[in-house]
C-alpha cells in the first residue's frame, strides 16, 4: 500500500504500517489480557481491522481469537455505545 502516483496530483507518501506484534516479537495473546486487547478494539468495541492496525494476517488471527474468547467470558463487550 504505497500510492506512487506521479503527475499533477499530490504525491502521498504514506508511512508503511508495521504489525505491532511482529515488531514486539509477540506470538501469543492471552484472552485475559484485556488491556492489551483493548488496543485492538474500536470505540464501539468492534475488532480493529487490519487495514487500520496494520497487523499481519497471522497476528490478526491471534488477536481475533483472543478477543472472541474474552468476549465469550464477558471480559470484553461485544458492543458498546
Amino acid at each position, binding site marked *: 500500500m504505497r500510492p506512487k502516483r506521479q503527475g499533477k496530483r499530490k504525491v502521498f507518501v504514506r508511512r508503511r504500517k508495521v504489525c505491532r506484534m511482529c515488531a*514486539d*516479537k*509477540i*506470538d*501469543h*495473546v*492471552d*484472552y*485475559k*489480557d*484485556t*488491556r*492489551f486487547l483493548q488496543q485492538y478494539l474500536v470505540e464501539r468495541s468492534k475488532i480493529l481491522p487490519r487495514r487500520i492496525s496494520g497487523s499481519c494476517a497471522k497476528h490478526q*488471527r*491471534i488477536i481475533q*481469537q483472543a478477543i472472541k*474468547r474474552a*468476549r*465469550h*467470558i*464477558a*471480559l*470484553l*463487550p*461485544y*458492543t458498546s455505545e
Partner: protein
Amino acid sequence: MREYELMFVIDPRLTDDEIVGLSDQYKAMIESAGGEVYKQESWGKRKLAYQINKLSEGSYMLFHVRSDGGGAFTEVEQRMRQNERVLRYLTVRTNSGRLRLPEIVDETQESEAAPDAPAVDSAVEVAEVESP
C-alpha cells in the same frame, strides 16, 4: 501432558462458601477424570462486560489443569452447562510449543494470572468449549 485453563463465571449472589463448595466439586470432577488442577485462582467479583441473565457482575474462577487430553473436561463442562449458576465457562489449551509472551499484564487482575501462562498457539490446537 497438556496444560489447560478452565475459567468460569459464577452467579455473584452465591455466598463465598457456596462458591468454594461449587469449585471444589468441579475440581474433584476434573481430578477423577484424570486431570490435575495444579493451580487455582479466584478473581472474586468482577464487573461483566455485558449483562448475563440480567446480572452485571460475576465471580470469576480459574483452574490451571494438567491432563493427557480434553477428556478430563467432558463431565465438568456438562455439569457447568446444566448449572444455571455458572454463567459462562471457557476451556483453553495453554501450552503448545511457542513461548513469546506479551509483557503487558492486565492491571485489573490482582493476581499473577496472565504473565506466566504459556502460549496458546493458533485456533487449531485449542479445544474450546467442546469435548473431544
